[in-house]
Protein backbone atom coordinates (compact mmCIF):
# COMPACT_ATOMS: atom_id res chain seq x y z
CA UNK A 1 0.00 0.00 0.00
CA UNK A 2 2.92 2.26 0.69
CA UNK A 3 3.94 1.94 -2.95
CA UNK A 4 0.75 3.57 -4.13
CA UNK A 5 1.37 6.65 -2.07
CA UNK A 6 4.64 7.33 -3.91
CA UNK A 7 4.35 10.00 -6.53
CA UNK A 8 4.47 8.25 -9.93
CA UNK A 9 6.22 11.26 -11.45
CA UNK A 10 9.09 10.81 -9.03
CA UNK A 11 9.55 7.18 -10.09
CA UNK A 12 9.58 8.08 -13.77
CA UNK A 13 11.88 11.02 -13.13
CA UNK A 14 14.39 8.85 -11.27
CA UNK A 15 14.18 6.06 -13.85
CA UNK A 16 14.93 8.49 -16.65
CA UNK A 17 17.78 9.96 -14.65
CA UNK A 18 19.24 6.49 -13.97
CA UNK A 19 19.04 5.54 -17.65
CA UNK A 20 20.64 8.80 -18.70
CA UNK A 21 23.44 8.60 -16.13
CA UNK A 22 24.24 4.94 -16.85
CA UNK A 23 24.23 5.34 -20.61
CA UNK A 24 26.18 8.58 -20.37
CA UNK A 25 28.86 6.95 -18.26
CA UNK A 26 29.01 4.04 -20.71
CA UNK A 27 29.41 6.37 -23.68
CA UNK A 28 31.97 8.47 -21.83
CA UNK A 29 33.92 5.35 -20.87
CA UNK A 30 33.79 4.27 -24.52
CA UNK A 31 35.23 7.53 -25.69
CA UNK A 32 37.73 7.49 -22.84
CA UNK A 33 39.25 4.40 -24.43
CA UNK A 34 39.48 6.37 -27.66
CA UNK A 35 40.94 9.37 -25.84
CA UNK A 36 43.44 7.10 -24.13
CA UNK A 37 44.71 5.85 -27.46
CA UNK A 38 44.80 9.35 -28.90
CA UNK A 39 46.57 10.85 -25.87
CA UNK A 40 49.04 8.00 -25.80
CA UNK A 41 49.74 8.55 -29.47
CA UNK A 42 50.14 12.31 -29.15
CA UNK A 43 52.43 12.04 -26.14
CA UNK A 44 54.56 9.60 -28.10
CA UNK A 45 54.65 11.71 -31.30
CA UNK A 46 52.30 9.36 -33.12
CA UNK A 47 48.91 10.03 -34.72
CA UNK A 48 46.69 7.45 -33.06
CA UNK A 49 43.55 5.90 -34.51
CA UNK A 50 42.31 8.08 -37.39
CA UNK A 51 40.82 5.65 -39.90
CA UNK A 52 37.35 4.72 -38.57
CA UNK A 53 35.10 7.66 -39.27
CA UNK A 54 36.11 11.33 -39.19
CA UNK A 55 39.20 11.73 -36.98
CA UNK A 56 38.77 8.08 -36.01
CA UNK A 57 35.70 8.90 -33.95
CA UNK A 58 34.04 5.56 -34.72
CA UNK A 59 37.05 3.64 -33.38
CA UNK A 60 35.45 2.74 -30.01
CA UNK A 61 32.44 1.30 -31.87
CA UNK A 62 34.74 -0.80 -34.01
CA UNK A 63 36.62 -1.95 -30.92
CA UNK A 64 33.41 -2.91 -29.15
CA UNK A 65 32.10 -4.73 -32.20
CA UNK A 66 35.35 -6.64 -32.49
CA UNK A 67 35.11 -7.76 -28.87
CA UNK A 68 31.54 -8.99 -29.43
CA UNK A 69 32.53 -11.04 -32.46
CA UNK A 70 35.58 -12.64 -30.87
CA UNK A 71 35.36 -16.28 -29.92
CA UNK A 72 34.34 -16.71 -26.34
CA UNK A 73 36.41 -19.21 -24.41
CA UNK A 74 35.50 -20.44 -20.95
CA UNK A 75 38.35 -22.63 -19.67
CA UNK A 76 37.29 -26.23 -19.00
CA UNK A 77 38.65 -26.27 -15.46
CA UNK A 78 37.24 -22.93 -14.46
CA UNK A 79 34.36 -22.45 -12.10
CA UNK A 80 31.83 -21.37 -14.71
CA UNK A 81 29.34 -19.45 -12.60
CA UNK A 82 32.03 -17.42 -10.88
CA UNK A 83 33.90 -17.00 -14.15
CA UNK A 84 30.91 -15.23 -15.61
CA UNK A 85 30.14 -13.39 -12.39
CA UNK A 86 33.61 -11.80 -12.20
CA UNK A 87 33.30 -9.31 -15.07
CA UNK A 88 29.60 -8.77 -14.35
CA UNK A 89 30.42 -7.78 -10.78
CA UNK A 90 33.28 -5.55 -11.89
CA UNK A 91 30.93 -3.73 -14.26
CA UNK A 92 28.10 -3.54 -11.72
CA UNK A 93 30.21 -2.03 -8.95
CA UNK A 94 31.77 0.39 -11.41
CA UNK A 95 28.33 1.67 -12.40
CA UNK A 96 26.79 1.72 -8.91
CA UNK A 97 28.83 4.62 -7.59
CA UNK A 98 27.20 7.04 -10.01
CA UNK A 99 23.97 6.93 -7.95
CA UNK A 100 25.01 9.41 -5.28
CA UNK A 101 26.97 11.84 -7.41
CA UNK A 102 25.36 15.25 -7.86
CA UNK A 103 25.67 15.84 -11.61
CA UNK A 104 24.16 19.28 -11.48
CA UNK A 105 21.75 21.55 -9.69
CA UNK A 106 17.96 21.40 -10.03
CA UNK A 107 16.30 21.70 -13.43
CA UNK A 108 12.72 22.83 -14.01
CA UNK A 109 10.90 20.58 -16.47
CA UNK A 110 7.11 20.20 -16.90
CA UNK A 111 6.58 22.24 -13.75
CA UNK A 112 8.67 19.90 -11.64
CA UNK A 113 11.93 20.58 -9.87
CA UNK A 114 14.22 17.73 -10.85
CA UNK A 115 17.44 17.31 -8.93
CA UNK A 116 20.24 16.05 -11.17
CA UNK A 117 21.27 13.48 -8.63
CA UNK A 118 19.78 10.02 -8.52
CA UNK A 119 19.66 9.95 -4.75
CA UNK A 120 21.01 12.33 -2.14
CA UNK A 121 21.99 9.79 0.51
CA UNK A 122 23.10 11.53 3.66
CA UNK A 123 26.03 9.10 3.94
CA UNK A 124 26.99 9.49 0.27
CA UNK A 125 30.72 9.39 0.89
CA UNK A 126 30.45 6.18 2.89
CA UNK A 127 28.34 4.65 0.14
CA UNK A 128 30.99 5.53 -2.44
CA UNK A 129 33.69 3.95 -0.32
CA UNK A 130 31.61 0.85 0.27
CA UNK A 131 30.94 0.31 -3.42
CA UNK A 132 34.53 1.08 -4.42
CA UNK A 133 35.84 -1.55 -2.02
CA UNK A 134 33.32 -4.02 -3.43
CA UNK A 135 34.94 -3.41 -6.81
CA UNK A 136 37.85 -5.66 -5.93
CA UNK A 137 35.52 -8.67 -5.66
CA UNK A 138 34.92 -8.64 -9.39
CA UNK A 139 38.64 -8.90 -9.99
CA UNK A 140 39.25 -11.45 -7.24
CA UNK A 141 36.37 -13.74 -8.16
CA UNK A 142 37.22 -13.61 -11.84
CA UNK A 143 40.88 -14.30 -11.24
CA UNK A 144 40.19 -17.17 -8.86
CA UNK A 145 37.56 -18.72 -11.10
CA UNK A 146 39.96 -18.77 -14.07
CA UNK A 147 41.98 -21.52 -12.38
CA UNK A 148 45.19 -20.00 -13.67
CA UNK A 149 48.25 -19.16 -11.61
CA UNK A 150 48.90 -15.86 -13.35
CA UNK A 151 45.29 -14.78 -12.97
CA UNK A 152 45.34 -15.70 -9.31
CA UNK A 153 48.55 -13.75 -8.75
CA UNK A 154 46.99 -10.75 -10.45
CA UNK A 155 43.89 -11.07 -8.31
CA UNK A 156 45.93 -11.34 -5.13
CA UNK A 157 47.90 -8.28 -6.09
CA UNK A 158 44.72 -6.36 -6.82
CA UNK A 159 43.17 -7.35 -3.49
CA UNK A 160 46.15 -6.45 -1.33
CA UNK A 161 46.81 -3.27 -3.27
CA UNK A 162 43.24 -2.01 -2.99
CA UNK A 163 43.03 -2.86 0.71
CA UNK A 164 46.32 -1.07 1.40
CA UNK A 165 45.41 2.08 -0.47
CA UNK A 166 41.85 2.23 0.79
CA UNK A 167 43.19 2.89 4.28
CA UNK A 168 45.15 5.96 3.26
CA UNK A 169 42.25 7.09 1.08
CA UNK A 170 39.80 6.76 3.96
CA UNK A 171 42.03 8.64 6.38
CA UNK A 172 42.58 11.47 3.91
CA UNK A 173 38.79 11.56 3.49
CA UNK A 174 38.28 11.86 7.26
CA UNK A 175 40.34 15.06 7.26
CA UNK A 176 38.10 16.42 4.50
CA UNK A 177 34.96 15.38 6.40
CA UNK A 178 36.26 17.20 9.46
CA UNK A 179 36.41 20.37 7.38
CA UNK A 180 33.06 20.01 5.64
CA UNK A 181 31.16 18.41 8.50
CA UNK A 182 28.88 16.46 6.18
CA UNK A 183 28.83 13.09 4.44
CA UNK A 184 26.38 14.14 1.74
CA UNK A 185 28.05 14.87 -1.57
CA UNK A 186 25.34 17.35 -2.54
CA UNK A 187 25.85 19.37 0.60
CA UNK A 188 29.60 19.40 0.03
CA UNK A 189 29.09 20.90 -3.41
CA UNK A 190 26.69 23.52 -2.06
CA UNK A 191 29.25 24.45 0.60
CA UNK A 192 31.93 24.83 -2.05
CA UNK A 193 29.62 26.90 -4.22
CA UNK A 194 29.11 29.38 -1.40
CA UNK A 195 32.61 29.29 0.02
CA UNK A 196 35.78 28.15 -1.69
CA UNK A 197 36.84 24.81 -3.09
CA UNK A 198 38.04 22.16 -0.66
CA UNK A 199 41.39 21.86 -2.41
CA UNK A 200 42.40 25.11 -0.67
CA UNK A 201 41.77 23.58 2.76
CA UNK A 202 43.08 20.15 1.96
CA UNK A 203 45.95 20.21 -0.55
CA UNK A 204 47.81 17.37 1.13
CA UNK A 205 44.60 15.42 1.56
CA UNK A 206 43.91 15.84 -2.15
CA UNK A 207 47.37 14.60 -3.09
CA UNK A 208 46.95 11.48 -0.97
CA UNK A 209 43.46 10.95 -2.37
CA UNK A 210 44.75 11.33 -5.91
CA UNK A 211 47.54 8.79 -5.47
CA UNK A 212 45.12 6.36 -3.84
CA UNK A 213 42.59 6.89 -6.62
CA UNK A 214 45.25 5.87 -9.13
CA UNK A 215 45.89 2.74 -7.09
CA UNK A 216 42.18 1.94 -6.70
CA UNK A 217 41.63 2.23 -10.44
CA UNK A 218 44.60 -0.08 -11.16
CA UNK A 219 46.10 2.61 -13.33
CA UNK A 220 49.79 3.01 -14.05
CA UNK A 221 52.01 3.39 -12.01
CA UNK A 222 49.95 1.01 -9.86
CA UNK A 223 48.77 -1.39 -12.57
CA UNK A 224 50.46 -4.40 -11.03
CA UNK A 225 47.35 -6.63 -11.14
CA UNK A 226 47.54 -6.64 -14.92
CA UNK A 227 51.29 -6.22 -15.38
CA UNK A 228 51.54 -7.76 -18.85
CA UNK A 229 55.25 -8.40 -18.78
CA UNK A 230 55.11 -10.29 -15.49
CA UNK A 231 51.67 -11.89 -15.42
CA UNK A 232 50.70 -12.23 -19.11
CA UNK A 233 47.47 -10.29 -18.63
CA UNK A 234 47.08 -10.46 -14.86
CA UNK A 235 43.61 -11.21 -13.56
CA UNK A 236 42.03 -11.28 -17.02
CA UNK A 237 44.50 -13.68 -18.62
CA UNK A 238 41.85 -16.34 -19.29
CA UNK A 239 39.15 -13.94 -20.42
CA UNK A 240 38.20 -13.36 -24.01
CA UNK A 241 35.50 -11.69 -26.05
CA UNK A 242 33.17 -9.23 -24.32
CA UNK A 243 33.98 -10.60 -20.85
CA UNK A 244 37.46 -9.22 -21.30
CA UNK A 245 35.80 -6.12 -22.72
CA UNK A 246 33.77 -5.77 -19.53
CA UNK A 247 36.90 -5.85 -17.39
CA UNK A 248 38.66 -3.29 -19.54
CA UNK A 249 35.54 -1.19 -19.73
CA UNK A 250 34.97 -1.34 -15.98
CA UNK A 251 38.45 0.09 -15.54
CA UNK A 252 37.54 3.08 -17.67
CA UNK A 253 34.23 3.60 -15.91
CA UNK A 254 36.09 3.46 -12.60
CA UNK A 255 38.45 6.07 -13.91
CA UNK A 256 35.54 8.28 -14.95
CA UNK A 257 33.73 7.85 -11.65
CA UNK A 258 36.81 8.51 -9.54
CA UNK A 259 37.47 11.63 -11.61
CA UNK A 260 33.92 12.76 -10.87
CA UNK A 261 34.38 12.06 -7.18
CA UNK A 262 37.65 13.96 -7.02
CA UNK A 263 36.06 16.89 -8.85
CA UNK A 264 33.09 16.79 -6.48
CA UNK A 265 35.05 16.47 -3.27
CA UNK A 266 37.92 18.83 -3.94
CA UNK A 267 37.09 20.99 -6.96
CA UNK A 268 33.58 22.19 -6.29
CA UNK A 269 31.66 19.56 -8.27
CA UNK A 270 29.26 21.31 -10.63
CA UNK A 271 30.29 24.73 -9.36
CA UNK A 272 31.40 27.04 -12.14
CA UNK A 273 34.04 29.38 -10.77
CA UNK A 274 33.45 33.17 -10.96
CA UNK A 275 29.79 32.69 -11.93
CA UNK A 276 26.99 33.41 -9.50
CA UNK A 277 24.49 30.66 -10.30
CA UNK A 278 21.66 32.19 -8.28
CA UNK A 279 21.39 35.11 -10.74
CA UNK A 280 20.76 32.82 -13.74
CA UNK A 281 17.59 30.93 -14.53
CA UNK A 282 17.73 27.48 -12.89
CA UNK A 283 17.86 25.51 -16.16
CA UNK A 284 20.75 27.54 -17.57
CA UNK A 285 22.56 27.34 -14.25
CA UNK A 286 22.12 23.56 -14.16
CA UNK A 287 23.42 23.22 -17.72
CA UNK A 288 26.46 25.36 -16.93
CA UNK A 289 26.97 23.24 -13.82
CA UNK A 290 26.94 19.96 -15.75
CA UNK A 291 29.32 21.43 -18.31
CA UNK A 292 31.65 22.66 -15.57
CA UNK A 293 31.67 19.25 -13.91
CA UNK A 294 32.41 17.53 -17.22
CA UNK A 295 35.24 19.96 -17.94
CA UNK A 296 36.81 19.21 -14.55
CA UNK A 297 36.34 15.49 -15.14
CA UNK A 298 38.01 15.66 -18.54
CA UNK A 299 41.00 17.36 -16.94
CA UNK A 300 41.25 14.55 -14.40
CA UNK A 301 40.89 11.87 -17.07
CA UNK A 302 43.65 13.55 -19.04
CA UNK A 303 45.77 13.55 -15.89
CA UNK A 304 45.17 9.80 -15.50
CA UNK A 305 46.38 9.24 -19.07
CA UNK A 306 49.21 11.70 -18.85
CA UNK A 307 50.56 9.91 -15.78
CA UNK A 308 50.10 6.54 -17.44
CA UNK A 309 52.32 7.48 -20.34
CA UNK A 310 54.94 9.13 -18.14
CA UNK A 311 55.60 7.06 -15.05
CA UNK A 312 56.75 3.44 -15.16
CA UNK A 313 55.18 0.76 -12.99
CA UNK A 314 56.19 0.29 -9.36
CA UNK A 315 57.80 -2.83 -8.05
CA UNK A 316 55.46 -4.66 -5.69
CA UNK A 317 57.52 -3.99 -2.56
CA UNK A 318 57.79 -0.33 -3.53
CA UNK A 319 54.01 -0.22 -3.90
CA UNK A 320 53.48 -1.66 -0.44
CA UNK A 321 56.17 0.62 0.99
CA UNK A 322 54.49 3.67 -0.49
CA UNK A 323 51.05 2.62 0.72
CA UNK A 324 51.81 1.55 4.26
CA UNK A 325 54.89 3.49 5.26
CA UNK A 326 54.41 6.80 3.47
CA UNK A 327 50.78 7.45 2.55
CA UNK A 328 49.14 6.20 5.76
CA UNK A 329 51.45 8.17 8.13
CA UNK A 330 51.08 11.17 5.84
CA UNK A 331 47.29 10.86 5.90
CA UNK A 332 47.34 10.53 9.68
CA UNK A 333 49.54 13.60 9.91
CA UNK A 334 47.16 15.47 7.63
CA UNK A 335 44.23 14.46 9.83
CA UNK A 336 46.07 15.61 12.95
CA UNK A 337 47.00 18.90 11.30
CA UNK A 338 43.44 19.52 10.15
CA UNK A 339 42.11 18.74 13.61
CA UNK A 340 44.63 21.11 15.19
CA UNK A 341 43.76 23.94 12.81
CA UNK A 342 40.02 23.45 13.31
CA UNK A 343 40.48 23.43 17.07
CA UNK A 344 42.59 26.58 16.96
CA UNK A 345 40.14 28.60 14.88
CA UNK A 346 36.89 27.44 16.50
CA UNK A 347 37.83 28.05 20.10
Amino acid at each position, binding site marked *: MMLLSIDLGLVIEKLVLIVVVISASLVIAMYTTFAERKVAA*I*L*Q*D*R*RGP*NRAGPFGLLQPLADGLKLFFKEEIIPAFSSKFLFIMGPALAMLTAMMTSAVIPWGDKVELFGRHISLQITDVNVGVLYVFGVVSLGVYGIMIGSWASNNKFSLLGGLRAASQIISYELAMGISMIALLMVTGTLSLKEMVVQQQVGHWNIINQPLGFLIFLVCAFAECNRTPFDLPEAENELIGGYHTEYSSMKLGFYLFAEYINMFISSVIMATLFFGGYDMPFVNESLLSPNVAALIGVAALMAKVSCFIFLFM*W*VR*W*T*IPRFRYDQLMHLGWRILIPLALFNMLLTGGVILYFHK
Partner: protein
Amino acid sequence: MQALTNKAKQVSRKPMSFMEKMYLPAIFKGMMITFMHIFKKKPTINYPEKKRPFSPVFRGMQILNRDEEGRENCTACGLCAVACPAEAITMEAAERQTGEENLYKEEKYAAKYEINMLRCIFCGLCEEACPKDAIYLSETFTPADYQRKQFIYGKNDLLIPHPKENPEAYKKALGNRANKEMVN
Protein backbone atom coordinates in the same frame (compact mmCIF):
# COMPACT_ATOMS: atom_id res chain seq x y z
CA MET B 1 90.23 -1.68 -11.90
CA GLN B 2 91.56 -0.60 -15.26
CA ALA B 3 88.70 0.36 -17.52
CA LEU B 4 88.81 -1.01 -21.04
CA THR B 5 87.40 2.15 -22.60
CA ASN B 6 86.91 5.73 -21.47
CA LYS B 7 83.14 5.31 -21.77
CA ALA B 8 82.63 3.63 -18.39
CA LYS B 9 80.71 5.71 -15.86
CA GLN B 10 80.84 5.21 -12.12
CA VAL B 11 77.34 4.50 -10.76
CA SER B 12 76.38 6.92 -8.03
CA ARG B 13 75.29 5.02 -4.92
CA LYS B 14 74.85 7.94 -2.58
CA PRO B 15 71.57 7.88 -0.60
CA MET B 16 68.73 9.98 -1.98
CA SER B 17 68.17 13.42 -0.57
CA PHE B 18 64.81 14.37 0.94
CA MET B 19 63.69 16.09 -2.25
CA GLU B 20 64.56 13.03 -4.27
CA LYS B 21 62.78 10.79 -1.78
CA MET B 22 59.58 12.79 -2.22
CA TYR B 23 59.54 11.70 -5.88
CA LEU B 24 57.05 14.45 -6.74
CA PRO B 25 59.56 16.94 -8.25
CA ALA B 26 60.97 14.18 -10.42
CA ILE B 27 57.44 13.12 -11.42
CA PHE B 28 56.51 16.68 -12.40
CA LYS B 29 59.71 16.98 -14.38
CA GLY B 30 58.91 13.78 -16.24
CA MET B 31 55.34 14.87 -16.84
CA MET B 32 56.52 18.17 -18.29
CA ILE B 33 58.73 16.27 -20.70
CA THR B 34 55.83 14.14 -21.93
CA PHE B 35 53.59 17.22 -22.06
CA MET B 36 56.02 19.04 -24.34
CA HIS B 37 55.73 16.15 -26.76
CA ILE B 38 52.15 17.26 -27.50
CA PHE B 39 53.54 20.21 -29.45
CA LYS B 40 56.15 18.25 -31.37
CA LYS B 41 55.77 17.65 -35.05
CA LYS B 42 54.59 14.15 -35.85
CA PRO B 43 56.95 12.35 -38.21
CA THR B 44 54.20 10.00 -39.42
CA ILE B 45 52.91 10.41 -42.97
CA ASN B 46 49.25 9.48 -43.54
CA TYR B 47 50.19 6.90 -46.14
CA PRO B 48 47.44 6.36 -48.68
CA GLU B 49 46.50 10.06 -48.74
CA LYS B 50 50.04 11.33 -48.71
CA LYS B 51 53.04 9.57 -50.16
CA ARG B 52 56.65 10.10 -49.36
CA PRO B 53 58.60 11.08 -52.51
CA PHE B 54 61.02 8.42 -53.65
CA SER B 55 64.70 9.13 -53.68
CA PRO B 56 66.21 9.57 -57.18
CA VAL B 57 68.09 6.29 -56.81
CA PHE B 58 64.99 4.31 -55.82
CA ARG B 59 64.72 1.01 -57.66
CA GLY B 60 61.19 -0.34 -57.86
CA MET B 61 59.28 -2.72 -60.10
CA GLN B 62 60.61 -3.26 -63.60
CA ILE B 63 58.96 -1.90 -66.72
CA LEU B 64 59.56 -2.94 -70.32
CA ASN B 65 60.08 0.22 -72.32
CA ARG B 66 58.68 1.28 -75.69
CA ASP B 67 60.03 3.92 -78.05
CA GLU B 68 58.18 7.15 -78.94
CA GLU B 69 55.96 5.40 -81.49
CA GLY B 70 54.97 2.70 -79.05
CA ARG B 71 57.14 -0.12 -80.38
CA GLU B 72 58.68 -2.51 -77.88
CA ASN B 73 62.41 -1.97 -77.44
CA CYS B 74 63.24 -5.46 -76.21
CA THR B 75 65.00 -7.75 -78.70
CA ALA B 76 65.16 -10.75 -76.35
CA CYS B 77 68.95 -10.80 -76.41
CA GLY B 78 69.00 -12.30 -72.93
CA LEU B 79 71.69 -10.05 -71.46
CA CYS B 80 69.42 -9.05 -68.61
CA ALA B 81 68.77 -12.71 -67.77
CA VAL B 82 72.52 -13.35 -67.75
CA ALA B 83 73.19 -10.30 -65.62
CA CYS B 84 70.49 -11.12 -63.11
CA PRO B 85 72.18 -12.43 -59.92
CA ALA B 86 68.92 -13.83 -58.59
CA GLU B 87 68.06 -15.61 -61.84
CA ALA B 88 64.64 -14.07 -61.84
CA ILE B 89 64.31 -13.35 -65.56
CA THR B 90 63.35 -15.80 -68.31
CA MET B 91 62.35 -15.04 -71.87
CA GLU B 92 61.55 -16.62 -75.22
CA ALA B 93 62.52 -14.90 -78.45
CA ALA B 94 60.47 -14.76 -81.64
CA GLU B 95 60.94 -13.31 -85.11
CA ARG B 96 58.99 -10.27 -86.20
CA GLN B 97 56.57 -11.02 -89.03
CA THR B 98 55.79 -8.54 -91.80
CA GLY B 99 53.02 -6.25 -90.69
CA GLU B 100 54.22 -6.21 -87.11
CA GLU B 101 56.65 -3.30 -87.63
CA ASN B 102 54.43 -1.03 -85.58
CA LEU B 103 54.62 -3.43 -82.62
CA TYR B 104 58.27 -4.30 -82.34
CA LYS B 105 61.22 -2.06 -82.97
CA GLU B 106 63.63 -4.66 -84.35
CA GLU B 107 63.43 -7.98 -86.19
CA LYS B 108 63.58 -10.07 -83.04
CA TYR B 109 61.36 -9.59 -80.03
CA ALA B 110 60.45 -11.25 -76.74
CA ALA B 111 57.41 -13.45 -77.19
CA LYS B 112 57.48 -14.29 -73.52
CA TYR B 113 59.22 -12.24 -70.87
CA GLU B 114 58.83 -13.19 -67.20
CA ILE B 115 60.29 -11.83 -64.00
CA ASN B 116 59.75 -13.69 -60.78
CA MET B 117 59.18 -10.85 -58.35
CA LEU B 118 59.79 -13.09 -55.35
CA ARG B 119 63.30 -13.77 -56.61
CA CYS B 120 64.08 -10.29 -57.83
CA ILE B 121 66.33 -8.34 -55.48
CA PHE B 122 65.84 -5.02 -57.29
CA CYS B 123 69.57 -4.58 -57.84
CA GLY B 124 69.13 -2.90 -61.21
CA LEU B 125 71.75 -4.97 -63.01
CA CYS B 126 69.23 -5.85 -65.76
CA GLU B 127 68.81 -2.15 -66.43
CA GLU B 128 72.56 -1.71 -66.67
CA ALA B 129 73.01 -4.74 -68.89
CA CYS B 130 70.32 -3.78 -71.42
CA PRO B 131 71.82 -2.41 -74.65
CA LYS B 132 68.42 -1.39 -76.03
CA ASP B 133 67.03 0.81 -73.22
CA ALA B 134 64.31 -1.80 -72.91
CA ILE B 135 64.12 -2.40 -69.17
CA TYR B 136 63.97 0.08 -66.32
CA LEU B 137 63.35 -0.14 -62.64
CA SER B 138 60.44 2.22 -62.14
CA GLU B 139 59.22 4.12 -59.09
CA THR B 140 56.42 1.79 -58.08
CA PHE B 141 56.22 -1.03 -55.59
CA THR B 142 55.43 -4.59 -56.47
CA PRO B 143 51.96 -4.93 -54.94
CA ALA B 144 51.24 -7.64 -52.38
CA ASP B 145 49.33 -10.75 -53.42
CA TYR B 146 47.86 -13.92 -51.96
CA GLN B 147 49.51 -16.56 -54.16
CA ARG B 148 53.11 -17.15 -55.07
CA LYS B 149 52.32 -17.78 -58.71
CA GLN B 150 50.83 -14.31 -59.02
CA PHE B 151 54.30 -12.92 -58.51
CA ILE B 152 55.62 -14.26 -61.80
CA TYR B 153 55.05 -11.16 -63.89
CA GLY B 154 54.61 -11.58 -67.62
CA LYS B 155 54.68 -9.04 -70.40
CA ASN B 156 51.16 -7.89 -69.55
CA ASP B 157 52.26 -6.75 -66.13
CA LEU B 158 55.61 -5.32 -67.18
CA LEU B 159 55.01 -3.46 -70.44
CA ILE B 160 54.83 0.30 -70.16
CA PRO B 161 51.54 1.91 -71.36
CA HIS B 162 51.44 2.95 -75.00
CA PRO B 163 52.95 6.48 -75.39
CA LYS B 164 50.43 7.53 -78.06
CA GLU B 165 47.26 5.85 -76.83
CA ASN B 166 47.83 6.67 -73.20
CA PRO B 167 50.53 9.35 -72.96
CA GLU B 168 49.88 10.32 -69.35
CA ALA B 169 50.14 6.80 -67.98
CA TYR B 170 53.25 6.35 -70.11
CA LYS B 171 54.93 9.37 -68.61
CA LYS B 172 53.97 8.34 -65.09
CA ALA B 173 55.28 4.81 -65.58
CA LEU B 174 58.49 6.07 -67.09
CA GLY B 175 59.15 8.21 -64.02
CA ASN B 176 62.19 10.33 -63.32
CA ARG B 177 64.63 7.49 -63.48
CA ALA B 178 64.31 6.95 -67.22
CA ASN B 179 64.46 10.71 -67.88
CA LYS B 180 67.70 10.99 -66.01
CA GLU B 181 69.26 8.30 -68.15
CA MET B 182 68.02 9.95 -71.31
CA VAL B 183 69.64 13.27 -70.42
CA ASN B 184 73.02 11.64 -70.03
